[in-house]
Every structure is written in C-alpha cells, then in structure tokens.
C-alpha cells in the first residue's frame, strides 16, 4: 500500500443544501395545493372567481355603501345604494324580545343568565353536584321571570313532588300495617302518591296560589304570551323542548330496547310516528287541534301548546340518539351489571345510562341545534319568532319592501349560534373519544 497519497476522507457530513425553491415556500405550496394538475388549476381558478364575485358584491353592499342612519327605506336609498342597515338598528330589539315590554326586559336577561348557570352542571362534568338542584329549580324560576304573575303558582307546582314523597312516606307504613300483602301495599302506596301529585297539580296548586297570594303577594307584572317573540321565543321553545324531551327520550329509548313486547311496541310506534311526520303538521295540531283532546272548556296558552308538541317531537329524535348510545356500549357492561346482581333500574341508573348518555352528548347537542333551527317554523302558525317578526316590520310603511337586510340578519344570528354549538359538540366528541382509549 502506498501511504503517501492519502485519499480524501470527509471530516463530516456535507451541510444539506437548501431545498429547491420548487419544494418549499409559498410558490411550492401553491403548486402543490392549488395547481398540482390541470383540472386542479381550473378548479382553483373557478373557485377564486366565485369567491371574488361573492366578495365583490357583498363587501361594498354590506360595508362600504351601507346606511346605518335613516328613517325609512326610501330615505336609505336616497343616501346610498348599499344595505339599509338602519332597519336593523331600529328594530333589533324587536328581533331579540318581540313585543316584550321594554321595562320588563331585564327579566328575560336574568332568565337567560340563570339558564347558563343551570346548564353548566349538566354540560360540564367539573361543576359541583349540588348545582344540579339549581338546574332542577330553574324551569319554575324561568317561567315566573318570563311570564310574571305571582310566584306562588310556580312554587306550588314545584312543591308537587315534595308533597308526593311525603304522601308516600305516610301511606307506605299505613298500608303495610293492614292485612294486605307487602308488595301490593308498596305498589298501592306509589300509585296513591302519584294520584296525590296529579290532584295537587290539577286543583291544589290553584288553591295554594290563591290563599298565599291573598296573604303575601309576591309577583311580577304579567307578560302575555302574544308579546313574547324574537330570539327570546326561539330560545324558550328550543330550550324547554330539549329539556323536556330529555327524560322522555330516555324513557322511550329504554322502552324501545326493552324486551317487554307491549312497551317496546308502544315506544317504537310513537318514535316512528313522530319521526315520520313533519314538525309543521305537529304545530298545526298544536294551533288548531290540541284543544279537542282536552276536557271541554280547557284552553291554554299557544306557546305552551307549541312547547308540548315540540317536546314530543324532540323526544322521538332524542330517543334515537340515546338508543345509539345504549347500543354503542360494550355488551360486557350489561353483563357486568347483571353479574353484580343489580336489578334493571339499578343497573341502568348506576352503570348503563351514565356511560350511554356520556357517549350521546354530541348527538344530543346536534338534536338541539336541529330543534333550535326548527323553531323558525312557529312563524307559520302566527307566532312572532324572528321570522314571524318580519311581518309587522314589513307591514310598516317605512320598511315596506325590504328583504335582504332582514333575512341576512336572522341568518347570521342563527349561523353564529348553531355554528358555535356544533363546534362545541365536535370538541366534546374528540374529548370523549380520547377518554375511551
């Protein structure tokens, strides 16, 4: 070997040269993501054109040429050619509250804030359990705040379950003391307590309300249903519909999965019936037919009738969501619950439902979004939800003939609300998924 000529040995790696400009940087990004092939490039150009033409018509209309200060549509058109946002400025409070009296509007704001407080322990696991009592009380409080009247009515209704439990506590030992068999006595006590509850709600509350109101009158000025409108009405219908449909939906889901033939048939029949007809026909039932099914002479508020039908409607969809949750649980959970010797209700309450409901929360939120969007249908039966409130506004001489600004305002409101909710449901979905692995 000749050592005099040492071959070149690299002392280290040659430093990497920068990637060619065709692979990095904005140009490369565009090449890869926008112009990777000829069809792709054409699509990009078409897309860019669509975006451009949309922006070119909307931006000047909505921002540059829009009019915020005007007294009528004609006045708007004189000032500038863009959107006449003056109508929104003048009427946005009607969009929010309908004709809710101005000096009472703070009540609906309080009700809204309390709603967030009440919903918190339900939607977020981190909240203290005691808060659930607040949630349970919320419906009565919200009803009283929004409709006003004496406080004793809602209090009386809320007392119902308490009275029923007391009745059960008294009746149970008394009946067991008789010669009746224990089981029968227990059932009888439950049935009688239920009867007490129904009687209390039907007759007792009125008396209770009457007596206490004459002694101590605590109340707010009454606001009639016909004055409630706008997004407030959408929220009332949507939230009470979803809250009411939750227990009903659980019951229906369990019923549909039950192996008791009659119960199963009834639940399935109800779910399929409600899911088979459009909501609008149910609303027609609420507005024209519901009174026929009640004892002669009974008549109650249209909003309440709508809420009842919407609740039944949502319950059928809720039941399917919860049934999906129940089906998604591994079979081992059911078997484990049985193996522990728990009876049906205990296993449901302690093992199955908490898990199934947790899985179903995104679906429940989606049902709520759907229901909230569907509240716009009440305008068809003459309620003043955001779409319904368009009628009085357009019947006004000043704003006759205005279209886009109003539709756009409602659309944007719903978009913000529903988009926010759907993001929340996606976030939940991701969170719950990782929890499972």
């Amino acid at each position, binding site marked *: 070997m000749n050592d005099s000529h040492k071959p070149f040995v690299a002392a280290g790696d040659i430093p990497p040269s920068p990637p060619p400009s065709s692979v990095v940087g904005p140009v490369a990004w565009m090449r890869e993501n926008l112009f990777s092939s000829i069809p792709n490039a054409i699509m990009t150009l078409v897309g860019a054109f669509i975006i451009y033409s949309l922006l070119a018509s909307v931006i000047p209309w909505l921002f540059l040429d829009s009019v915020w200060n005007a007294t009528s549509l004609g006045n708007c058109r004189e000032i500038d050619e863009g959107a006449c946002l003056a109508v929104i400025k003048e009427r946005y409070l009607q969009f929010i509250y309908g004709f809710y009296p101005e000096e009472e509007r703070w009540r609906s704001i309080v009700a809204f804030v309390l709603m967030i407080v009440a919903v918190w322990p339900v939607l977020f696991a981190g909240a203290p359990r005691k808060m659930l009592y607040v949630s349970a009380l919320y419906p009565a409080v919200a009803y009283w705040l929004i409709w006003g009247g004496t406080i004793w009515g809602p209090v009386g209704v809320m007392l*119902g379950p308490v009275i029923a439990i007391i009745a059960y506590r008294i009746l149970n030992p008394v009946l067991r003391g008789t010669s009746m068999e224990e089981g029968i006595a227990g059932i009888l006590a439950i049935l009688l307590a239920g009867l007490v509850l129904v009687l209390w709600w039907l007759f007792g509350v009125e008396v209770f309300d009457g007596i206490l109101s004459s002694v101590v009158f605590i109340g707010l000025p009454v606001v009639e249903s*016909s004055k409630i409108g706008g997004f407030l009405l959408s929220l009332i219908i949507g939230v009470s519909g979803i809250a009411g449909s939750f227990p009903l939906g659980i019951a229906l889901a369990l019923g549909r999965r039950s192996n008791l033939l009659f119960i199963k048939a009834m639940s399935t029949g109800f779910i399929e019936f409600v899911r088979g007809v459009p909501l609008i026909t149910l609303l027609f039932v609420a*507005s024209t037919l519901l009174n026929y099914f009640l004892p002669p002479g009974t008549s109650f508020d249209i909003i309440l009738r709508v809420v009842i039908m919407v609740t039944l409607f949502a319950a059928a969809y809720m039941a399917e969501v919860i049934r999906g949750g129940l089906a998604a649980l591994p079979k081992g959970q059911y078997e484990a619950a049985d193996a522990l010797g728990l009876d049906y209700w205990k296993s449901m309450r302690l093992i199955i439902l908490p898990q199934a409901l947790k899985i179903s929360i995104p679906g429940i939120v989606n049902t709520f979004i759907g229901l909230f969007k569907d509240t716009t249908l009440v305008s068809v039966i003459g309620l003043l939800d955001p779409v319904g409130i368009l009628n009085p506004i357009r019947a006004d001489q000043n704003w006759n003939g205005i279209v886009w600004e109003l539709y756009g305002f409602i659309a944007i409101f719903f978009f913000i609300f529903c988009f926010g909710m759907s993001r929340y449901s996606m976030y939940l979905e991701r969170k719950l998924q990782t929890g499972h692995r």
Partner: protein
Amino acid sequence: MKVKGAIIAAAAVMAVSTAANAATLDDVKAKGFVQCGVSTGLAGFAFTDANGVWDGFDVTFCRATAAAIFGDANAIKFTPTTGKTRFTALASGEVDILYRNTTWTLSRDVDLGFTFTGVNYYDGQGFMVRKSLGVKSAKELDGATVCIQTGTTTELNLADFFRANGMSYEPVPIETNAEAQQKYLSNACDVYTTDASGLAATRATFEKPGEHVLLPEIISKEPLGPLVRQGDDQWADISAWVLNALIIAEEKGVTKANVAKLAADGSADPEVNRLLGKEGSYGEMLGLPADWAVHAISAGGNYGEIFERNVGESTAIGLARGLNQLWSKGGILYAPPFR
C-alpha cells in the same frame, strides 16, 4: 332533571276557563276582561304600535264591547289570529269574540257553529294592479298572475269570477299579507286581490301609492262582522247591540265629545235618552249596567268617528264611507230601533 319543566308550565297556565255552553258574560265578568280575537296585523283595522298597544277599526269595536261591560275600554286582551286559527280560537273558548275581517257566510254561520252578530264593515273583494300595466277593468286580466292571501273566501270568489268570465289566471296563494305584498311589489304578480279595504290599507303602506290603482270591479259581497259562539244568546245580544248602539249614536249625533254631557243632562230626543240609560232599563235586559252605551261610545266615539279616525279619508288608508254610510245618507248602515 328538568322533567318538571313542561308540567310546571302546564299546571301553572292551565287556567281552566269554561267555554261553549256556559254563559260567556259571567265568565268574562269573572275573569275581569274580554278576550278579543283580531287580525295579526292589517293597517287601519288591527295593528300594534311600537309599544305593542293594539289599535285600529276592529280593535276599537272590541274596546267598546269591553267598555260596555266593565266601563273600562282597557279591560280587554287581544289574541292575534291567522286565517287558519281564528275559528278554532273562538270555538275552543280561547277568545270570547272575534272581530277579524271575517266574512258572514251561510256555512260559517250554520255549519261551523258560530253566530254573526252584525256587520261593522261592508266590504267586497277587489283588485289592485300597477298603473303602468294600463289595465282598466278586471275583465282584461286574462292570463294574469294573481297574488291571493289564503285562508279567506278570497280564493273562492276569485275562482268563481275567472270561471264565470271564461278567463284563465295563475293563482299565487300566500299565507300572510306582508309576504303577498312583497311578491306584488317585486312584480312577481300582476294583480293583488283581497278585500277592497285591505287593498286600500296595503296600498297606503307602499312607498309610491300613486303607482297602483284599484280596479272598479268588486267581485263579491263581504259583510265583515263580529262573531261569537253559537248557543249563548245573551252574549250574542250584547255584541250585536254594542255595534248597534254605536251606529245609532252616529245617527243621533252622539259623539265621544258630547256623550258625557248628554248622559248627564239628558236630551230632547227620547231615543238618545234610552240609549244613554236615562229612560227605561235596557242595560238590565242585556245584563249590563244602565250606562253601558255611554261607556261604549266614550271608548272610541260613534261609528262614524271610529271609521274616520282609523280608516277614513283623512287617514293614510283613505277609505270612503261608501256602503258604510248611514242609511239616511245613502249607505246601508241601518240599526234596529233602540226601544
């Protein structure tokens, strides 16, 4: 959880009110106000102002009824009803009386189980078109697109009219007045048809009312009046005679301004004295206070005053009295004698 939500509301609102067979007057007195069904919104006839207070031609008659019973024109609540819900609202007892541009027809009077108690506005179905179309008569409307507000007798009259004249047309049925007029304004219809009073009211809200004309043809008789549930004669009588009292008041020159003075001092005309409760016991016969008519007239004036203030020629709606003039002045308003 919130299982109680619905029940709460249900129990709390389930104010049980007897309807149908019972004496409506007693119920009304017991609850302290009259529940009156009106239109959801028709300029001049029934509308809410920015504060949500109801006003208009029909509304004033409702208020007069309340005033006759309670002596207070504000002892009243209004339920806005659509063409679809109005009859159910009355039948179910949700409202006590319906003052909502409702045409008196045989089937409604007989088959639906209601009683019409009078006519507060004689109307007829008309047509509105753009002046620029150059149409002079409804007979020239062959092939036109016609916007109709549904839920009334309008679509039936229209079908009859075009069939009788051997013309074709394109009906566009719309649920609400606002939506229908939007279509008409955007030129999606050539013609807008509804009661002539409604057309005038609608035209009054247009930016340029002068560009639209009402065609001369009136194709139907539309006696609009109050209605109540069948089978309660006392309540029907009250509603009929409040209306009659307002017409007689105009006939006799009793106005909102002079009614209090006439009631106090009496009048030379015995019928005025009977009307205002100075002679006879007509209030008692109806189950009302003796001075019921005084209160009814004080609420909004006599028929003529109500007409002029809400829909008359001095208002934006600008309706002429026409048929709704007193019989003695060439119209057909004719109240039975007050004795």
